[in-house]
């Protein structure tokens, strides 16, 4: 483990996907950057998600950010030599009843207006393309943007890549106090004190706590998302699978394991630090999965786990300057933030280095919640 530098251009609080990508692109732009984390780097939402990089399940407001992100995910290897276990098999977003088919149609029309074309599949065409789908699945849209990466592999790869780019990354270094100095901020952590001209709060579910150290209230709460992984098996499904109701996210990795998510909530919360499996919700999650892909019922479940994901009431990203605190930025709480992470990091680096972003991001500014 490296130690904390005493001084840096930019200090990023939070070593998840948003923080590490912000740091990576800032370092490439020539800034000295340090990233601190209260626990293990990559320890929460970035490590505890299904690895789905699905564009078509995103709400319209973040569709373009996610498309940008998929391109960056795909380019990590060529650009930085970072192997995140990326695959882009395209994804099926499925519907299992009339109401869901109706939702899926409306969503497809809406996405087309935003420039995202998906293919409508039903009947024999759907069976031919995905014979592994269960009989309850009656329609799906196919999106060739939908991809995946491996959260496990990506964590290690991005941490090493950022270190290679010169970023100092330190775990077990929770920020305990932030003081304004001139110029910049002095941050006291569990592993020493560091002064930075610019602060980026990318602490996911703990971003509210970090902002409070600067006297700003942000309405951040935590979801407790559950994930499950099966034993490895021979190739079974060749697409990323999601559900129009937002209740399933499923894929098979090259090592043969199937990862099952879908935003089902476990037990616990930030105040207690508890993040445990919710028994009934886990069974709901598994039932939906086995309903959509019946062969899953014969696979053994090997591990289920849960992680905190920061969320704000409108479930849109917190992205932009923290109101009233010059030089402090927030990049956190994007729902489905794993898939958007590289784009949000890239855009944040743009904002810090040039004051502008190449996609419109004003609507995500934290000031929307400032009283």
């Amino acid at each position, binding site marked *: 483990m490296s130690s904390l530098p005493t001084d840096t251009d930019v200090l990023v609080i939070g070593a998840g996907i948003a923080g590490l990508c912000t740091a990576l692109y800032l370092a490439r732009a020539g800034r000295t950057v340090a990233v601190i984390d209260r626990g*293990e780097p990559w320890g929460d939402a970035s490590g505890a998600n299904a690895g789905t990089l699905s564009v078509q399940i995103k709400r319209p407001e973040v569709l373009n950010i996610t498309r940008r992100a998929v391109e960056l995910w795909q380019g990590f290897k060529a650009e930085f030599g970072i192997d995140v276990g990326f695959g882009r098999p395209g994804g099926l977003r499925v519907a299992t009843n009339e109401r869901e088919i109706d939702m899926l149609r409306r969503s497809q029309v809406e996405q087309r207006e935003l420039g995202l074309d998906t293919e409508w599949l039903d009947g024999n065409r759907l069976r031919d393309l995905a014979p592994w789908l269960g009989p309850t699945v009656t329609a799906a849209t196919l999106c060739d943007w939908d991809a995946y990466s491996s959260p496990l592999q990506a964590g290690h790869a991005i941490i090493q890549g950022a270190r290679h780019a010169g970023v100092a990354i330190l775990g077990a270094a929770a920020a305990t106090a932030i003081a304004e100095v001139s110029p910049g901020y002095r941050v006291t952590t569990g592993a020493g004190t560091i002064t930075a001209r610019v602060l980026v709060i990318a602490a996911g579910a703990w971003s509210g706590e970090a902002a409070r150290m600067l006297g700003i209230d942000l309405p951040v709460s935590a*979801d407790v998302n559950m994930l499950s992984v099966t034993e490895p098996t021979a190739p079974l499904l060749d697409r990323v699978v999601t559900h129009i109701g937002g209740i399933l996210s499923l894929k098979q990795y090259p090592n043969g394991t199937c990862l099952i998510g879908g935003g089902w909530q*476990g*037990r616990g919360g930030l105040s207690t630090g508890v993040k445990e*499996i919710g028994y*009934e919700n886990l069974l709901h999650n598994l039932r939906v999965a086995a309903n959509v892909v019946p062969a899953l019922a014969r696979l*053994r479940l090997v591990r289920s786990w849960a992680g905190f994901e920061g969320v704000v009431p409108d*479930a849109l990203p917190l992205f932009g300057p923290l109101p009233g605190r010059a030089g402090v930025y927030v990049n956190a709480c994007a729902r489905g933030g794993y898939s958007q992470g590289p784009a949000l990091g890239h855009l944040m680096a743009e904002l810090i280095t040039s004051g502008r972003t190449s996609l419109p991001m004003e609507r995500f500014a934290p000031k929307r919640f400032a009283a």
Partner: protein
Amino acid sequence: MIEVDLAILGAGPAGLAAAGEAVAHGLRVAVVDDNPRAGGQYFRQPPAQFRRDGGSWFDKEATRVAELLRVLDHPSITYLPDTVVWDVPAPDTLAVAGGERSGRVRGRALLIAAGAHDRPVPFPGWTLPGVISAGGAQNLLKGNRIVPGRRIVVAGNGPLLFVVAASLVRAGAEVAAVVEAAPINRRLLHAWPSMLAAPKILRQALDYRLSLLRAGVPVRTGMTVVAARGADAVQDAAIAPIALDGSVDRAVSETIACDALVVGFGLTPSVELLRLIGCELGYNRGRGGWLAVRSDRMETSVANVFAAGDGAAIGGVEIALLEGRLVGLEVAARLGRAGNAEQRRAALRDQLDRTDKFRRAIEAIFAGPSHYLGLLTADTVVCRCEEVTHGELQARQAEALDSMIQLKSTTRAGMGRCQGRNCMATLASIVSEASGTPIAGLNYPRTRPPVRPIAIGDLLHEPIPPPDLPADPHLPRRQNAS
């Protein structure tokens, strides 16, 4: 949902003894066990189809077993064999699944009597077919009356080695050598007096030792297996001296031809369920490593969750039986059903104390090397499931990805179907040695359900109320209380 006074995981000695005591006081009891037949590892029985005349050395416990198993026919007992406890959704509830049945068993008290498994010690060749754990060899003998080879080396550390070796000899196999890492011979003299505290076990121990002497089995002490070799199965074992600080002198290794190598470096309590419940655990190498912190009534740090037998701390069958009875009695007393519990408790405690004195003596005799990391080469597989070698772990350590959690997530060590049972202890040793942090101070990866791999379809038999979902799938969902 099955509702009882006492829900027991494990139909081994501790679980059955607790059940017997509890039903004797009028409690309703559920016993869940993932084996098709009750008895646990120690009292493992051959299949019902085997016709036994009872005269065999291997049937010497038959009367005691029959008596212990009789409790399962009691009308107050719900017995669920072939059933896995895969989660503990609340500290009074076991989530169970087996065959066409899944659901929950709720008890006013829980007893976790999960038993133990062999402490994994990797060395070059330990993955070869024919290299069998001591527990595995015992199960083969007890459950099938079959020995794993015709010329067998028995190596490792601890009293179980001698039990296994003697049983193999009794079964007619050739035991080429017993290789014991601890220098037990020089310790035996001091230990005699305390061993007299439990004459019955002592007699048994002498019987084992005599069997080996009569068969002329060489007992090599202060030595360890350092490699198993063979093409498609083990053909020979290399042994070398090992010191108590773990250093191995390969320069003086010798080779013993064999077609089976039984390895046992002691047992480790299966504490996964206790971890999952959040019971406080302690670390005591002599009793198997991680173990349950308990009151003198066998209650864990979580109220009304009890732990007993080898699944709480390695102590052997007699201790497991006594602890189980104490738990049954205590739960009955708490529910006002035990009458003069004090007298019975004192008697059980007294027996337990005497047996524990014997156990401590044995523990002192067999105290082994502080670690076995000297057996590892770069190409030694540490995680059997994901095939992660020691060299791969060292490469991550060199990149400063050196905590247990980082080693696990970057190499996949511990992520396979054995769920870390065969490698986490080694990972802990490796990280502890490298960092100087005692094993008890390491940050362990969390234990998560399912505690055993289980087919997804097997979990879906329980009817549960439909979920409460928001109309807009993009909005956050409500957390689930259960």
